[in-house]
């Protein structure tokens, strides 16, 4: 048996791709996303917390958003787009994320090439995980992939193991 590193689905020896999530199982020339073992609290969260969205106040129309990489101490402003994809660039990737975390050792933090996005739909902003290998947490809770979660000033977003705080500047 081969176990898919992305979703844990079992495939027969000789399989080239995971039939469940489409991940290539052989000869991955580009580096796969580093798998971070899930902690006990992650598993607990998955069992206990079922899509409990937080109650978020609307963001003022004229506010500007930025991302604060807490471990690194950098601030990345979000300007000009209505949706920002976040991930890390790698050599043979056809599309690049709008916010490329590769310079900040994204690989070591377990960030997928296309990990998540922040969508701004005034007056709200939303966080969406793209079914990333190591998942995304919002204020310590793992979020369901492909589902938008409203976010607000001060929220802590964990992409893999990278901690990012959302800042709303008036």
């Amino acid at each position, binding site marked *: *048996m081969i176990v898919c590193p992305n*979703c844990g689905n079992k495939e*027969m*020896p*000789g*399989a*080239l*791709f*995971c*039939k*469940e*999530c*489409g991940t*290539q199982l*052989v*000869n991955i*020339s580009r580096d796969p996303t580093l798998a971070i073992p899930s902690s006990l609290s992650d598993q607990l969260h998955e069992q206990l917390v079922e899509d409990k969205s937080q109650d978020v106040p609307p963001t003022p129309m004229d506010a500007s958003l930025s991302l604060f990489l807490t471990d690194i101490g950098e601030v990345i402003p979000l300007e000009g787009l209505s949706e920002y994809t976040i991930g890390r660039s790698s050599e043979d*990737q*056809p*599309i690049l994320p709008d916010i490329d975390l590769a310079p900040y050792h994204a690989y070591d933090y377990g960030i997928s*090439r*296309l990990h998540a996005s922040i969508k701004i739909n005034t007056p709200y902003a939303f966080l969406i995980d*793209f*079914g990333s290998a190591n998942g995304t947490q919002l204020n310590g809770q793992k979020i369901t*992939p*492909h589902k938008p979660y409203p976010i607000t000033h001060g929220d802590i977003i964990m992409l893999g193991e990278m901690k990012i705080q959302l800042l709303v500047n008036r």
Partner: protein
Amino acid sequence: MGKPSLYESLGLPRDASKEEIRHAYRQLVLRLHPDKNVSAGETELFIDIQQAYELLSDPMRKADYDSHLPDELSRVSPLNIQIYYSQPSLVRLSEPQLIYSLLELSLQTDTNQLVSSTPMNISLVVDCSTSMQGIRLDTVKLTAIELVRQLQPNDIFSLIKFNDRAELLIPAGTLSDIKSTEMKIQLLQAGGGTEIFKGLEMGFSQVSQFRSNNRVNHVILITDGRTYGDEVSCDRLADQSSALGISISSLGIGTQWNDKFLDHLTSKTGGICKYVSDIQDIRSSILGEISRLGSNLTEQITYNYQALQEVELHSAFRLHPASSPLVLGPPLILGFIPKHGTLNILLEFLIKDIPSSITSFTLAKGLINYEIPRHKIKTNYVQRLIFERKITNDPIHEAPPTIILNAMTSFTLYFMQERARDEMAKGDFNSATRHMENLATNLLRKGENDLAQTILDEVAYIHTNRSYSENGEKRLKYATRSLFLPARTEGNNL
């Protein structure tokens, strides 16, 4: 060209072994046995095959026949066969394993040996049920008239209209009076239900009257509806059609027609099934199909493989041209080689067990049969094709060829889409949407943003409505299938 030899009528090479003769005969019997209510012409064909087998299976009579047989026109097969495997060897394991193979066929013919174009023998089978009324039927009519005007003097054409019953509007033959033919088409009217078998059967019988190796023998079905209760008869007809080298293509208009059924039916005969969502595309689809038929170098290529015990051909998919899942045989109808380019088939073998005594494993063996209708001297060809791998105790770490990886990327995505579809049909919305979301993620990674967005929109629709949107189901299927289109795969040709 003369009368075909007994070997040719069984689709065998002259040096066929006893086992090959028996296998070929059995396959043909399965398809053409008179007990399976076959039309009159085929009973004759069946008797010919019966006689050929009786003679060839008797060593004495066979030797006598062989000694009187005139020399073969040409022993050289112009078919280039290239096989790629996902692994250099099979590893001895205590559990079942998979191996993928990509078959690439191309033709190496001296163009001097070809006549410039193949005469056509085609039948247009037009659905005239109530739902076709209006712009759909009008567009089909205009296209049919355009087609009639394009025909060459020696082309054979027939047109059948059908609803609950079939009516022979233009009997098969060369067209002498174009004006009156156009008039007949112009007067087509819609009304009634959709019984595909009746139309298809008549189209088939019209084409079979003039069937010949140096013509393109083809039925084109144009429908917008779903047939009820006659699927089995249609399926049976497709088998007969394929045995006679008559291919069937279909054009499905709108959303109501049964794409799974028509995919299956056409694929059995080496034809293709197209989805037309926009009325504007009806004309280009019909005329495109005709020009494709005229330019193909080969008629349908068949791989008549023998079923083996330890291995199963798990799935087969034609990547190019006209990507489509293939109906598993034997025989496997592979399709045709286009004027420019190659015919590429992806095969998935499931190996159940590797006997300890052997060092080389046969995945499939059998005969490839094909026709080159435009060839001046010899039109029928047969050659052996075997898939095999050596066996090792330890895996050999070698990257699969790029051509296989590329093909498998698209195939996996198509497969995920089909799986989501099956889950939708069963009412398992959660699994279906999860697979669709995974599919979308993979498409984003590939840079197929538009298709990914379409899928995510569809997922959102399913979440609220618990069903596909009106066009959604077919659109997703044919869009993921279009990932195989030449523009995307041809650049990667090795």
